[in-house]
């Protein structure tokens, strides 16, 4: 059935009309909050007074954030967690992907599925599960450590020195599977004849790994590391739930994303929270750029 001509979209307008739902949603849930937080970063605001109560304070919120001890503490926590959870992800995912790629035939999909499962499971469910695993007196982790090695019960989520490793372990476990899938996909794009030629030339497996596999994975490594850098700097859900939303003793598990959330909703300071979120954004941009530099082909290389 044909629509009357006046109801039909002209070909020139059709793409815009079809894209409109996305742009509307993006404007409401993406662009507006972004611009609003930028505006808020320059305001002092008692939120319960309503929107009219904002007062322009210039760069005061940024100055406050940069001199705030807790902001720097949260940045250090974030950096620690990003490194401790991010670096092992790749150091484990690459050999694991190579192993699955070369050794597993029929079990391949099962193995990949098992490693990928944590990635698609709800963070909240995972964190609640781990909170009970990490429980000092009744947790499975302490039971195993005590049973096998005779280690005294560790207060994982109560002592500042143990909170970060506990969170990093959860984050590592959660994302390593995602990276395995990433690297597996990349391994399939490396031409088989390269390995055949290398075998003919008498190269060992290790030499093949170092000189064929790793260079072949470099573009995907850049992609994966970039995602880890961005994800690591924005880490929020796992520490938030594992530490009951407060960051734990001495705020040892309070990441910057968590702190700025708390600044707004627990400590009622939306202006400073917005300023901190933009400072964090600047840091993410800077480090992504640095990652890009690090993985850029050097002069003389292909």
């Amino acid at each position, binding site marked *: 059935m044909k629509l009357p001509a006046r109801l039909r979209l002209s070909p020139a307008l059709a793409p815009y009309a079809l894209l409109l739902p996305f742009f509307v949603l993006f404007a409401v849930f993406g662009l507006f909050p972004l611009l609003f937080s930028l505006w808020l970063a320059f305001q002092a605001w008692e939120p319960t007074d309503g929107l009219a109560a904002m007062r322009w304070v210039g760069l005061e919120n940024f100055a406050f954030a940069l001199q705030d001890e807790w902001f720097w503490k949260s940045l250090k926590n974030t950096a620690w967690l990003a490194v401790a959870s991010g670096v092992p992800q790749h150091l484990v995912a690459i050999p694991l992907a190579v192993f699955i790629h070369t050794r597993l035939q029929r079990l391949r999909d099962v193995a990949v599925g098992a490693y990928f499962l944590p990635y698609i499971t709800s963070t909240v469910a995972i964190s609640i599960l781990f909170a009970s695993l990490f429980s000092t007196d009744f947790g499975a982790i302490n039971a195993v450590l005590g049973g096998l090695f005779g280690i005294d019960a560790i207060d994982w989520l109560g002592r500042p020195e143990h909170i970060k490793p506990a969170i990093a372990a959860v984050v590592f476990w959660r994302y390593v599977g995602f990276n395995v899938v990433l690297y597996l996909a990349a391994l399939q794009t490396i031409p088989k004849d390269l390995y055949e030629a290398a075998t003919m030339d008498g190269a060992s497996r290790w030499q093949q790994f170092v000189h064929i596999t790793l260079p072949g994975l470099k573009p995907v490594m850049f992609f994966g590391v970039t995602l880890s850098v961005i994800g690591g700097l924005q880490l929020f859900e796992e520490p938030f739930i594992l530490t009951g*939303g407060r960051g734990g003793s001495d705020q040892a598990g309070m990441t910057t994303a968590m702190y700025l959330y708390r600044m707004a909703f627990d400590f009622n300071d939306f202006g400073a929270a917005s300023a901190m979120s933009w400072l964090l954004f600047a840091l993410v941009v800077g480090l992504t750029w640095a990652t890009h530099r690090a993985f850029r082909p050097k002069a003389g290389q292909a």
Partner: protein
Amino acid sequence: MQLGAATATRGPAVPPRTPDAMPQTPHAPTPRRRALLLGAAAALALPGPARATAPVRLTVAAYPAVDTIVREALPAWRERHPGVAVQVVSRQFADHHTAMTTALSTRSHLPDLMALEVGYVGRFAQGGGLDDLRQPPYDIGRIADRWVPYALAQATGRGGAIVAAPSDIGPGTLLVRHDLLTRAGLAEAELTRSWDGYVAAGRQIQARTGAYLLAHARDIKNLLIRTGIQPGEGLYFGAGHEVLVESPRFVRAFELAREVRRHRLDARVAEWSNEWSEGFKRGRLATQLTGAWLAGHLSNWIAPDTRGLWRALPLPEGAQAAWGGSFFAIPRGAPAGHKRLAWELIGLLTLDRAQQLQAFRRHDAFPALRESHDDPFFEEPIPFLGGQPARALWRDAARRISAVAVHKQDAFAGEVIDTELDKVLDRGKPIAVALADAARLLARRARR
């Protein structure tokens, strides 16, 4: 935020007042209550049932178990206002207060009536988003003395505006395991005479029964920093934003907490954690400094098997403190035509003896309404507390509590102090240095 409520309300896993555990028996209004309702309406001096033209629907935003308390008051409400429907919107504790903050800041989707926990009342009273109930048509000043005095003071902002009416309160008490005390050869008075006596008793309990004196050394600090506050002072900040955390009450609180830790008298578990409730179930915790309502939670769901083993005592050394409390407020931006009705609903919930007592009986919501305090229910023995008529004790405690001025940075200050206490307890940081560090952090924020 008053004592304990701070810790109790944060953990997303367990809200401070779990509704599931509360009995929810349907309850038909009795003739006696009807008479009282009429009496309350007369006392409020409000015009009779609002002139119903179009059907009116009030929305009430609340959290557990206040939402249930409001729902249970609706049969009585319908009797008074047959044409006015009431919709209760309930959210989890933290979600509710975040939603209320958002609604106030954008002036949209505001309920006609919002329930607020004491910590948020203080915070919201600093802003101008809630109606000042001293103004007409409310004129709360005329009926202010019908509530426990400190509760109304908690809802008073710096400019004197009263932004909410108190519904329930949480007078402080010391819950003790009577059986452990007996085994340790201690009399109850030895725990309450002085704080030093309390700690000494803890050592004796530890030595003779192996049980911990309390869950966390922080609990004792929380109480002591609330002891000896000068009139007009806040907990952490003075009237002129000056930081008070290096004053003697903080030093003593930290010293006593360190003493508790030094003798390993605390189980080092946080309130509302699994370890905490296990500690109660297994009799590992001999005492708990808390709001009176905890006895109900212990009895209903935390440790029902310990029935008869507990007793309630006054806080040591005559200390007074309140844990939690609920209020009802009317947002400034709510539809003007609903405000009079919303105020009448507040009257039913907070000034009606029968409603207040019903919430007390069913939900351990201790009445803020003074005229309900002479009910025989207060003298009834509580089986969970070995037949002790403890409600009378809590009633007397409630009368002695005085309100503390609220500061915008109290939530942050509380956390800074907890952090410094952890450093003192866990790493041996000198108390003077810890408090000086806290003071420096707070001074930077005092005027933000």
